[in-house]
């Protein structure tokens, strides 16, 4: 399937954001809304709308994308590719598009006539999907011709669509399965979404189970007489869920919106035995009545943000008194100890306790398990994995209900539920949900090989996409593909002569032991493979060098060892850069400092769209010392060399801003647009699941085209001391204007020193190695400063930069 043009109907918050996502993926997207009869009265708006006042609503929706937080804007393409149109003048556009997404207001009486109108313009074979989160699809397309209804199904994006991986795909009885599968493949490949097939039932999978969990938490909060903030402390990261937990999540969503979703379930599931759980609690109704609906109403809802002597304080609501009080999180004896445990061990420990906190966690888990068990047949075609994936991808839980239940001990949980009189479907005392791959007891490798299907009551193989190459996330993996490993990284044979170098240290920080493996891996790849991919399936590409090690050396004043370490780092990066085989880096999520330097030294970067990359060393009082400063400098000089006159300063200034301000990209595309990655060597991918596989194909393609290794740069004419003085001039004014600290300027001057090639005459010629020597000299100089030590210490303690 090829989607070159799409139409999104309804320029609400969801519609506009879906359009933004499509547009960033290179799809020309028409954003429809109701027509306007006159230009807006506000002259500023009128100017924005210009001549297209008939489509004012869409124009303004596109404008508002700029203000939304978190930002839906992935790249410069995002806004350029959305075309504002209106239902009245432009409806015939529908004939030309390859996909139509309906995202208008959630009302049957509005959606139905719109779909009828669409059916008149529908090009046969074009998918028409609805983003409804609650209305039955069968009803929506009732009475429309078969050529239309066969192309009609649900594509339910989660908010915010840029960031949420889940996309529920929902057929109705008449949907053409082949067409749906084609679009599903396109969505996964090009938008990077995780697809879960749901049945056409109320609120589908994610919202049905997710909302139930919140409702059940409300109920147990009340029964166990706990306050909101304590429950949020319990139901957040401790349970492997987002830190916004329960009540804060509701504040973010909006109490009114949330209550509407819950109410929808209540109204439409008369036979659900848990139906009463979906009733909004009284306190919530009360708050909504007062207009206190959370973040959007002056941050007053379950919590209230106030200013107290200039300090922001967040008070918590007390349903019993109807007042906001200072927070008072109840402490439970086990709380401190469980934090260092992994999720399963943590919950197992907690379930062995019996205080109110442990009780709450148990009861919420118990109810969620029981409700999922009850519904899996009806909402998820009997597949536990559909429920687990929907909850993981749509609500950012670490584990979904079934996999968590099984991991905690299927029998144990079942017995405790039964002892408490929880009713389960009859087939539940006979099975577990997943079986691991044959001959192994590790899910980590490839996930479960089969899942119990509750509809046909048998284990069915889990379909594995050929595009998903999974990489080991620990050194203890028994993965037979692993060629080389230590605790921090592995080299994995991913087939077709390509090896994957996968980091798996904590946050994938880099230290000498990891570098040792990298060096060995380069040797092994040289001997046994044709190409290397640097990728991993952890949470981040790499958060940078291990600061702890640097700080220890600073404390011991062992600067010689810092110099030695840096030599090792630099040499490793150079080995990557000048390897005899192609190396492709796959940055994603945090790609900072040393991690970013690794990616900069690869021959190509296949950048995931959600990449927050940057050379952020100045935040800890250092400069990129593993060749990162050198790389940006060399690129600046090389680019300047393309001109008839050689003027490196403007390019060096860009590099200086990137390093000196420690700029981090807002997306993968942005990392290229801000020229951190070279547009000539880097490409963006939307799908994390396929990133490794795609990188492998890139490597193969490079080999087939005839890859020839590069040679170290021998001679670059630098700007020298006059350049440094020019940067100093800028820094001086920033200090005088109190925009940066004296020490920021001190570091900035050192960044400039490397970029400009040292305090030498203009035009002096330097080799790549001399740039590395400068990097090291400056890095060690900075390590000798007390303020750098203070910055590193502060970062390690608080995770935030210190501006001293």
């Amino acid at each position, binding site marked *: 399937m090829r989607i070159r043009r799409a139409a999104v109907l309804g320029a609400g918050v969801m519609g506009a954001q879906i359009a933004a996502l499509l547009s960033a993926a290179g799809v020309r997207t028409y954003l429809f809304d109701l027509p306007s009869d006159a230009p807006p009265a506000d002259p500023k708006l009128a100017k924005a709308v210009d001549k297209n006042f008939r489509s004012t609503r869409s124009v303004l929706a596109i404008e508002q994308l700029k203000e939304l937080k978190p930002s839906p804007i992935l790249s410069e393409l995002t806004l350029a590719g959305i075309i504002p149109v209106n239902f009245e003048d432009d409806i015939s556009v529908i004939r030309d598009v390859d996909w139509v997404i309906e995202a208008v207001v959630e009302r049957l009486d509005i959606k139905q006539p719109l779909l009828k109108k669409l059916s008149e313009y529908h090009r046969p074979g074009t998918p028409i999907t609805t983003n409804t989160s609650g209305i039955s699809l069968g009803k929506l397309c009732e009475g429309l011709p078969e050529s239309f209804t066969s192309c009609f199904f649900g594509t339910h994006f989660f908010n915010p669509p840029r960031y949420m991986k889940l996309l529920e795909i929902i057929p109705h009885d008449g949907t053409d399965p082949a067409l749906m599968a084609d679009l599903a493949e396109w969505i996964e490949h090009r938008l990077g979404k995780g697809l879960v097939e749901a049945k056409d039932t109320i609120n589908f999978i994610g919202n049905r189970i997710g909302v139930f969990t919140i409702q059940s938490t409300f109920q147990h909060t009340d029964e166990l007489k706990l306050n909101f903030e304590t429950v949020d402390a319990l139901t957040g990261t401790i349970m492997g869920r987002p830190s916004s937990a329960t009540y804060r999540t509701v504040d973010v969503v909006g109490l009114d919106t949330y209550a509407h979703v819950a109410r929808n379930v209540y109204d439409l599931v008369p036979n659900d035995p848990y139906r009463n759980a979906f009733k909004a609690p009284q306190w919530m109704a009360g708050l909504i009545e007062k207009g206190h609906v959370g973040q959007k109403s002056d941050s007053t809802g379950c919590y209230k943000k106030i200013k107290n002597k200039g300090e922001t304080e967040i008070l918590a609501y007390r349903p019993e008194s109807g007042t906001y009080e200072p927070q008072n999180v109840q402490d439970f004896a086990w709380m401190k100890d469980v934090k260092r445990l992994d999720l399963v061990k943590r919950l197992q420990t907690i379930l062995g306790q019996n205080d109110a906190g442990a009780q709450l966690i148990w009861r919420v888990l118990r109810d969620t398990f029981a409700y999922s068990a009850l519904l899996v047949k009806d909402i998820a075609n009997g597949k536990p994995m559909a429920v687990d994936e929907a909850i993981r991808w749509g609500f950012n839980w670490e584990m979904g209900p079934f996999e968590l239940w099984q991991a905690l001990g299927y029998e144990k949980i079942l017995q405790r539920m039964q002892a408490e009189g929880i009713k389960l479907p009859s087939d539940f005392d006979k099975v577990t949900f997943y079986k691991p791959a044959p001959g192994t007891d590790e899910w980590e490798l490839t996930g479960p090989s089969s899942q119990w299907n509750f509809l046909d009551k048998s284990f069915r193989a889990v379909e594995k996409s050929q595009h998903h190459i999974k990489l080991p996330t620990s050194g203890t993996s028994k993965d037979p593909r692993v060629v080389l490993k230590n605790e921090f990284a592995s080299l994995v044979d991913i087939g077709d002569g390509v090896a994957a170098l996968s980091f798996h240290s904590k946050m994938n920080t880099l230290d000498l032991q990891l570098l040792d493996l990298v060096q060995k891996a380069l040797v092994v790849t040289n001997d046994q493979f044709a190409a290397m991919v640097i990728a991993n399936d952890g949470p981040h590409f790499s958060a940078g060098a291990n600061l702890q090690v640097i700080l220890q050396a600073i404390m011991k004043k062992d600067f010689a060892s810092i110099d030695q370490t840096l030599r090792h780092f630099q040499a490793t990066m150079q080995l990557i850069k000048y390897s005899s085989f192609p190396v492709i880096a796959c940055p994603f999520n945090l790609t900072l400092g040393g991690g970013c330097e690794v990616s900069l030294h690869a021959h190509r970067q296949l950048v995931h769209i959600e990449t927050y990359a940057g050379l952020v060393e100045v935040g800890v009082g250092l400069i990129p010392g593993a060749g990162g400063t050198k790389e940006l400098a060399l690129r600046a000089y090389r680019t300047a060399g393309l001109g008839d006159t050689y003027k490196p300063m403007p390019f060096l200034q860009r590099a200086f801003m990137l390093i000196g301000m420690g700029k981090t990209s807002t997306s993968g595309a942005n990392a290229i647009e801000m020229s951190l990655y070279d547009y000539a060597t880097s490409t963006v991918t939307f799908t994390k699941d396929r990133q490794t596989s795609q990188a492998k194909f890139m490597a193969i393609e490079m080999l087939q085209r005839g890859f020839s290794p590069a040679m170290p740069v021998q001679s670059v004419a630098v700007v020298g001391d006059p*350049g440094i003085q020019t940067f100093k*001039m800028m820094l001086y004014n920033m200090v005088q204007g*109190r925009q940066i600290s004296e020490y920021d300027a001190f570091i900035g001057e050192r960044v400039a020193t490397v970029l400009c090639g040292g305090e030498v005459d203009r035009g002096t010629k330097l080799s790549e190695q001399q740039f590395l020597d400068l990097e090291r000299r400056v890095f060690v100089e900075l390590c000798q400063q007390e303020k750098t030590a203070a910055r590193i210490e502060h970062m390690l303690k608080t995770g935030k930069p210190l501006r001293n």
Partner: protein
Amino acid sequence: MKPVYIISPYRSAVAKAFRGSFANKRPDDLCADVIKGVMAKTPTLDPALIEDVVIGCAMPEAEQGMNIARFALLLAGLPDSVPGMTINRFCSSGLQSIAIAYQQIAAGQAECVLAGGTESMTMIPMMGHEVVGSREVMTEHPEFYLSMGLTAENVAKDYKVSREDQDRFSFESHQKAVQAIEKGLFKNEIIPVEFEHRSLGKNAEAVVKRGILMQDEGPRVDTTLEALAKLRAVFLTGGTVTAGNSSQMSDGAAACIVASESFVKKHNLKPMARMCGFSVAGVPPRIMGIGPIEAIPKALKLAGITMKQIERIELNEAFAAQALAVTRELKLDPKMINPTGGAIALGHPLGATGAKLAATLIHGMHRDNQKYGIVSMCIGTGMGAAGVFEKV
């Protein structure tokens, strides 16, 4: 010294830099148009008798490099025999060029010189296209490189000029300028200048749109004290100097004829003023804005008159902070300063400003029948300049 007269002081309207009418008008073309205008207003003057053309320009490079004075005079159609020189003393360049002409004539070295200034801040950024720092300066005297905005902050601090006072001063500058335009007070001093904008048409042909600028673009009818108060300090975090109480970036040019008494008589010229004194002075670079405090008394002394005799002052409003500090330190009567608004409203085309203010001052003194007036300004890296004029 021989008396020296100013004939035909005129200026272009001042356009906003970047988005204004002169954004694509080269400063040499602009200057040539103004010279043509000055010549047209001086019909009895044979151009071949002009002995030199002195043009001030603060960033004489790129479009305004190549000795722009010579290019501008040739473009204006003056004969090949007329020489030209470009001079630079930053923001006083346009006044300095008149002063050089004045000094040549007073010393008996010339009879008739054309003087003026031109600047396109759109085309050449402040500090020029390529700034290169000096090791010596950065090591020993970094304050030489202090940005102009920060020097204004220093002046505000040293001379205790409040944010409120700066904003009020700026508001009044706009009010005065708007009223002056409404009353048509600038009509006599402005030479209409043609400009063009080029874009690509439907058939990929260049489409040229032409216009004539006859009115200053800077003054804002809708400026309010509240709006000015909301602006954030741009140079110093937590400071007082904002985009609203600083001069605007502009494009413009101005020129006049400077001649001896005998030359005026012989060629039947109609002088509008006599230049009676000019002076420059140095001050610490970190508070460059106070330059006029030193320059004005010096110039008055050279002119042999006292401050009491002065009825009108065009004091360049580089920043409200420094204009107020100068006014207060010299105990000047605020009413006589910039009665038709200053650079905060009307713009500050660096090298053209001195000649532009001279035109505004001299035409203003004629309108209001005033005898003595001053043009003065502060200058980057810590200087001040002042010129004293007598209406004739």
